[in-house]
C-alpha cells in the first residue's frame, strides 16, 4: 500500500498520542511507587517524580511487620480464595441444570435468576436482610451474599449449551448419574469459561471495599481495601495516631508514606496478573454483550 505524506504524519501523530495516553495510564503508579520507596521525611520535601531520591525499604518493612495490616491481607487473600472456589462450583452446578431441556424447573430457574438483574430492593432492605440473617460482622459476610452471580451463571450456561451432547448421552447409557456426568465430564470440559468467571470473581473480591465498609464494623475483619480507604478518608492526625499505636518509638515513616506503600502492595497482585487475565476478561465481555 502506498503511503502519502499526510498518512505518514497521521501515523506519527497517532503513535505520539498513544504513547502519551499510555504514559498517563501508567504514570500515577510510577509516581506512587517512587514515593513509597523513598525515605518518608525526605519525600515531604517534594521533587520526586520517577525515581526515589533516598532509597529505602522502610515503608514496606513496616507494612509487612505490622499485625493489623498483615491481618487485613490475610482476610483479603482468604476471601478471594474461598469466594472463588465456592462461586465457581455453585455457578457451574446451577448452569449445568439450566442446560437440561427435560428438567421441569428449567423455565422457572431462568426467570428466578433474570428478575433480580432488573429489580432490586436497594441497599437498606439488603442491609436489614443481612441483619436478620445474622450475617453482619463476620467473615462469611464476604462470602455468603456473593455466592452466586446471575451474569456468571448465564455466561457458563451459554458455554455448556455448546458442548457436544453425545458425550453426555454415552455416559448416560453407561449408567452414570447426573452427579458423575457433571463432575467427570461437564466440569472439566468447561474449564475455559470457569477460568474466566474465576478471574472475574477473584478480582471482584480483591477489589471489593463496599462489603467490609458497610456490613462489617469489626476492624479485625477488614480487608486491605478497607484499611486503605480508612487511611485515605480519615485526616492526617488520626492516621498518625494509628501509626504511633502501631510503632511506639522510632517513627521514620509518615502516614503518607505508609499509604503509598499500601497502595502499591494492594495494586501489585493485580498488576502482575492482569496482562494474563485480560484475554479472559475480553472474552467475557464479548460473550456478555451477546444476548444473555
Amino acid at each position, binding site marked *: 500500500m502506498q503511503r502519502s505524506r499526510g498518512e505518514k504524519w497521521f501515523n506519527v501523530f497517532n503513535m505520539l498520542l498513544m504513547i502519551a495516553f499510555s504514559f498517563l495510564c501508567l504514570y500515577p503508579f510510577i509516581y506512587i511507587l517512587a514515593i513509597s520507596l523513598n525515605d518518608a521525611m525526605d519525600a515531604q520535601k517534594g521533587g520526586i517524580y520517577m525515581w526515589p531520591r533516598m532509597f529505602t525499604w522502610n515503608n514496606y518493612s513496616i507494612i509487612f511487620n505490622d499485625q493489623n495490616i498483615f491481618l487485613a491481607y490475610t482476610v483479603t487473600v482468604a476471601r478471594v480464595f474461598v469466594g472463588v472456589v465456592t462461586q465457581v462450583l455453585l455457578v457451574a452446578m446451577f448452569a449445568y441444570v439450566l442446560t437440561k431441556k427435560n428438567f421441569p424447573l428449567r423455565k422457572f*430457574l431462568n426467570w428466578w435468576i433474570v428478575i433480580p438483574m432488573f429489580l432490586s430492593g436497594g441497599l437498606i432492605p439488603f442491609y436489614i436482610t443481612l441483619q436478620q440473617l445474622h450475617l453482619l460482622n463476620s467473615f462469611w459476610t464476604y462470602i455468603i451474599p456473593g*455466592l452466586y452471580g446471575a451474569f456468571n451463571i448465564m455466561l457458563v450456561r451459554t458455554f455448556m449449551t455448546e458442548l457436544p451432547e453425545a458425550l453426555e448421552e454415552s455416559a448416560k447409557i453407561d449408567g452414570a448419574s447426573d452427579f458423575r456426568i457433571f463432575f467427570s465430564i461437564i466440569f472439566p470440559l468447561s474449564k475455559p469459561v470457569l477460568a474466566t468467571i474465576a478471574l472475574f470473581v477473584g478480582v471482584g473480591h480483591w477489589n471489593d471495599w463496599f462489603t467490609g465498609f458497610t456490613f462489617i464494623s469489626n476492624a479485625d475483619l477488614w480487608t486491605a481495601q478497607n484499611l486503605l480507604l480508612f487511611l485515605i478518608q480519615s485526616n492526617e492526625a488520626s492516621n498518625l495516631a494509628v501509626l504511633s499505636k502501631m510503632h511506639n518509638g522510632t517513627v521514620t515513616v509518615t502516614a503518607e508514606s505508609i499509604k503509598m506503600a499500601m497502595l502499591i502492595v494492594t495494586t501489585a497482585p493485580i498488576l502482575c496478573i492482569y496482562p494474563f487475565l485480560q484475554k479472559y476478561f475480553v472474552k467475557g465481555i464479548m460473550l456478555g454483550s451477546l444476548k444473555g
Partner: protein
Amino acid sequence: MTTLAGSQAKSKRQQLAGKILHKIWDQRWLYVFTIPGIIFFLLFSYYPMFGIIMAFQDYNPVKGYSGSEFVGFDNFNTIFQLPDFNNALRNTLIISGLKLIIGFPATILFALFINEIHHTIFKRVVQTISYLPYFISWVIAAGLWYKMLSPDGGLINEMLTKVGFLNEPYYFMGSTTAFVPIVLFTELWKNIGFNAIIYLAALSSIDPHLYEVSSIDGASRVRQIWHIALPGIRGTMVLLFILSASGLMSAGFDQLWTMGNLQVQEVGQILDTLILSYLRNSGGFMGLSLGATMGVFQATVGLILFLVCNFVAKLFKQESLI
C-alpha cells in the same frame, strides 16, 4: 363395578405418582444442584425486594416489617422536600449525564485511534496498558489521584507552582469547581481503555476489502474513518449509547464515595452515596425508611429508563438488550 373402577383409577393414580416420583428421583442431582441457588436468590434478592414495603412505612427496626406502621406515600412526599435529596438527584443527573456526553464519543475516538495503529506489538502494548486502571478498585484510584492532586506536595501542584501558573498550592479535591471535572477525568482514565474493547471488536469485523478498495480510489485515512469505520460500528454505537443512557440514575457510586469529601458534597453527593450515608448515620429510625424510599425512587426511575431505552433499541435495530 364402581369399586373396581375406583380401584383401577386409584392404581392409575398411584402409577402416575410413582412415575413422577421416579422421575424426580432420576433427576435428584439436578434438584440438589439448584436448591442452594433457589434459596440464595430468595434470601438475597427476593426478600430484600419485599423489603421495599418499608418505603411505605415508618419503619421501626425493633418492630420489623410486620409491626411498623404504614404511612402510604408520606415518605415520598418527605424526600422530595429534602434539600439533600434534591441536591443529590441533581448531582446524579449532572454527573452521569456529563459522563455519557463526554465518555461516549471519547471512547469511540479512542477505539478509532487504536484501530489505526498498524504495528501489532505496539498496538497490543498500548491496549494492555490502557486496561490497567480498569482492574484496580476505586479505592486505589482515589488514593492515586488524591496524592497526585494533593495541595501538600502533590505532583500537579508542584508542577503548576513551578511554572508559575499557581502562586500557592490549590486544594483540587476540596474545590467545588474542580471536583466534577476531576470525576469526569478519572472516570475516563480508568475505563476508556476497557470500554473501547467492544468497539474494537466491531471495527475488526469490518471487511478489510472496503479499506483496500477505498485506498485505491485515493481516500485518505480520515475519509476512511468517516465513510467506512464509523458506519461499520453504528449498530454497536446505538446499542451502547442506549445501554449507558439507561444507567442515568447511577452516577458511579464507588468513585463518588471514595473521591468525595465533606467540602464537595454540594456537587459530589449523589443518590447512592446519600442513601449509604442515611444507612450509616441514620441514628433515628426515620432515616432508614427515607433512605429506602430514595432507593425505591432511584430503582423505579432506572427501570423505566431501561425499558424505554430497550424499546428504542428495538426500533433502531430489531435487537433488544433483553
